[in-house]
């Protein structure tokens, strides 16, 4: 594959109108999904049609919203003003690395917005126009915004390198606020948002469907371990509420991770419950508008209060944890009806969640392992040569770096890191975050996934890695696709799938297979 990183020779990028390429954008939102959450301009629309069915005076709507957000978000205002266009961010974006489109350079993505800001909110832009890098908001600009701000996964990798910490995610979030005021969401985002609002989760699983799905997993667990576990739902008075992305309930390999949580909690005998109302840890509202994100997130605390739990454990997910760490308490707190999380097994008090009362399941499990509370047989994972992919949000919006690694190193014998520039705070997006994990934009997703895949390929060739571990439901779905394309033969697994494989449960039968039903090393004659 050849990617040309050299931008066109035109004098000014503004002279080049947007060219929307098939395979690089998602289908438009359906009217019924926008209406379900009372969004403006709810109607079916298609980005490939000339007419986007925009409301009257849409320019006024956008500019008014821009003025409003400038007065509400210091980040937005400062980031509109202080970029010096040094270009340090230019080659840090996975979409630019995998595609070479100059408007995917974070600086230029932001300039798409800044140019309009200058025209209407600065004097230089007002009077000097193009010379000052300003331009009017017109339909071409709007289409360009829509195309490129739905090509940013808000991964924040560029902001790590920016000398002023300018965070493109903040600008993309604003662009998505504006486009949502015009009814310009994508089907892949607005569908899950409507589902989550009405049914409690992105996938639209109704209460009985959730239970059926869990039932199926329980059967599998019994087949593998001989132990029948019995999780509870919507149970009042439980000590802990467990919330995980609904993707874990739905499809492989997420379900293996989900089986992992349930086996762990069963073995510990902790008093926890699932909720069918708050059955979504993820939050596609975050990819829509601040208000929508808050509306979806409200269910978690509301349900914790209704059930009367003491605290909440959250499953493996990426953007879910950006929300839980940086937004939830501010939106929907204070969670003063709960207690500071305290592990019922080790007695460890999680002061780092003293206010939100919500801990990450890898924090919980790492503490268990450190205190010797789990019986583990890592040799059961000996057929797996593992590397670990940091999710963008847990890495750059939280700093959850060591907990998963500590767990992996205790449940697997073979672990190798990818190159330094591709992990931890410099980790690469899977290529499909922020609701870009649709199928119609597959070219974009595979291009965006190239940087991650390239690093995986490196350790596959160097160390024989065959398993890409992660703590993100979207990763589990999207990395599976990008691995199949770029590095076939690499499995994608949640950390708690690996935990459960190694976990020696009380009263279990001699295990023959791992959670995927594959023979354990030394058991199937495949050694």
């Amino acid at each position, binding site marked *: 594959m050849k990617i040309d990183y050299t931008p066109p020779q035109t004098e000014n990028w503004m002279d080049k109108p947007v060219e929307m390429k098939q395979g690089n954008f998602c289908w438009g939102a359906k009217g019924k999904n926008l209406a379900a959450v009372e969004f403006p301009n709810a109607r079916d629309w298609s980005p490939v049609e000339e007419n986007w069915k925009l409301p009257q005076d849409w320019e006024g709507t956008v500019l008014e919203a821009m003025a409003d957000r400038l007065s509400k978000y210091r980040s937005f205002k400062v980031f509109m003003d202080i970029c010096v266009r040094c270009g340090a961010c230019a080659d840090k974006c996975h979409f630019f690395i995998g595609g070479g489109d100059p408007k995917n350079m974070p600086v230029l993505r932001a300039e798409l917005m800044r140019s309009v800001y200058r025209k209407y909110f600065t004097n*230089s832009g007002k009077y000097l126009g193009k010379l000052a890098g300003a331009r009017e908001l017109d339909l071409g600009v709007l289409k360009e915004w829509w195309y490129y701000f739905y090509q940013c996964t808000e991964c924040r990798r560029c902001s790590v390198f920016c000398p002023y910490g300018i965070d493109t995610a903040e600008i993309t979030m604003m662009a998505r606020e504006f486009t949502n005021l015009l009814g310009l969401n994508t089907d892949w985002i607005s569908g899950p948002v409507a589902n989550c609002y009405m049914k409690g989760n992105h996938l639209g699983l109704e209460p009985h469907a959730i*239970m059926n799905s869990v039932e199926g997993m329980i059967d599998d667990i019994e087949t593998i371990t001989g132990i029948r576990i019995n999780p509870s739902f919507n149970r009042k008075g439980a000590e802990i509420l467990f919330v995980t992305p609904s993707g874990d309930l739905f499809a492989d390999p997420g379900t293996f991770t989900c089986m992992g949580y349930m086996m762990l909690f069963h073995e510990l005998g902790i008093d926890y419950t699932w909720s069918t109302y708050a059955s979504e840890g993820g939050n596609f509202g975050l990819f829509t508008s601040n208000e929508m994100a808050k509306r979806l997130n409200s269910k978690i605390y509301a349900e914790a209060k209704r059930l009367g739990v003491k605290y909440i454990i959250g499953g493996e997910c990426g953007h879910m944890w950006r929300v839980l760490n940086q937004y939830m308490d501010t939106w929907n707190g*204070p969670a003063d009806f709960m207690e500071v999380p305290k592990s019922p097994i080790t007695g460890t008090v999680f002061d780092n969640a003293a206010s939100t009362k919500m801990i990450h399941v890898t924090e919980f499990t790492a503490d268990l392992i450190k205190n010797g509370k789990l019986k583990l047989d890592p040799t059961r994972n000996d057929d797996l040569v593992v590397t670990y992919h940091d999710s963008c949000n847990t890495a750059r919006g939280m700093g959850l770096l060591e907990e998963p690694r500590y767990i992996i190193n205790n449940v697997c014998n073979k672990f190798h890191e990818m190159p330094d520039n591709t992990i931890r705070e410099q980790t690469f997006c899977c290529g499909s975050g922020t609701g870009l994990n649709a199928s119609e934009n597959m070219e974009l997703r595979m291009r965006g996934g190239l940087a991650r895949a390239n690093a995986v390929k490196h350790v596959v060739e160097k160390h024989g890695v065959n398993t890409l571990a992660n703590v993100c439901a979207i990763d589990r779905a999207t990395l599976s696709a990008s691995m199949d394309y770029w590095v076939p033969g690499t499995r994608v697994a949640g950390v708690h799938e690996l935990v459960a494989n190694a976990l020696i449960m009380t009263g279990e039968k001699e295990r023959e297979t791992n959670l995927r039903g594959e023979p354990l090393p030394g058991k199937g004659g495949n050694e």
Partner: protein
Amino acid sequence: MKVVLPFIAVVVLALLALVGVTMAHQVQFFFGVIVPYVAVAVFILGFIYRVLQWGKSPVPFCIPTTCGQQKTLPWIKHDKLENPATTLQVVGRMLLEVLFFRSLFRNLKTEMKEGKIVYGSEKLLWLAGLVFHWTFLFIFVRHFRFFFQEVPSVLRMMEGVDSFFQVGAPLFYMTDAVILGAITFLLFRRVYLPQIRYISLAADFFPLFLILGIALSGILMRYIFKVHIVAVKQFAMGLVSLSPIIPQGIGAIFYVHLFLICALLIYFPFSKLMHMGGVFLSPTRNMANDSRMVRHINPWNYPVHVHTYEEYEDDFREKMKKAGLPVEKE
């Protein structure tokens, strides 16, 4: 256009001063007294105004970009500077950022080689940027000798260090060469690197040409045209003591230097140069990652329409009962 126009603008500014001082006394007074006072006032007031304007917008969410391990279990080493959890740690992070350009130091060069993506070290931008800013500050402070009757020993020491090699008369300042080199590099990469040229605006070239003009005119008047230094000091002392005088025979190049500096001061608050103030206000850097420990308050947080549990149960009550789920209302 975006390169040539800013260049012409700076040349015009320089010529304006050059022509102006050869004219009547009133015009000299304008360039030597009015413009500097106005420039300083615009700079200070403008700078404050911009920072206050930014400050007027609240910080609704705690959004630090975390670049290291969070504070969590006691046996996991917390990266205090890259992922600060307290105000003191934030101060540490900000100091690294402001004094040493920590984030830019991470810079990499991403390239495609034989179908593989490789990451090379790319510290030149960091180095040039850091050198440019520090040298600029050094030279700026060094100039304070013109504003003191008795030159403070610190300034003498700085001069001593700067002219360490003791060559030339007047003694050659190293910083003069260094800043020219740094500006040239920064200009060169903007023109030469296709990606950077593509993203650059006239507003990126103008300050570079302007500062280059200031540096060049300063160097010219020190080493080549050798302006009347005693007169310059008289002039500077007059300005700071608010009893301005225009001594005769300073030399026209001095007014070019002065006028370009004034142009920079006036331009500063309205331009990207405000990153000087903005960096301190950047929420991704100046906040502690403590939002799970302490509730961050959003001053405009407002109630939103939610889908309550009761509504959810109403929607699914029969299905829930059938599945054996507890319900609030039978």
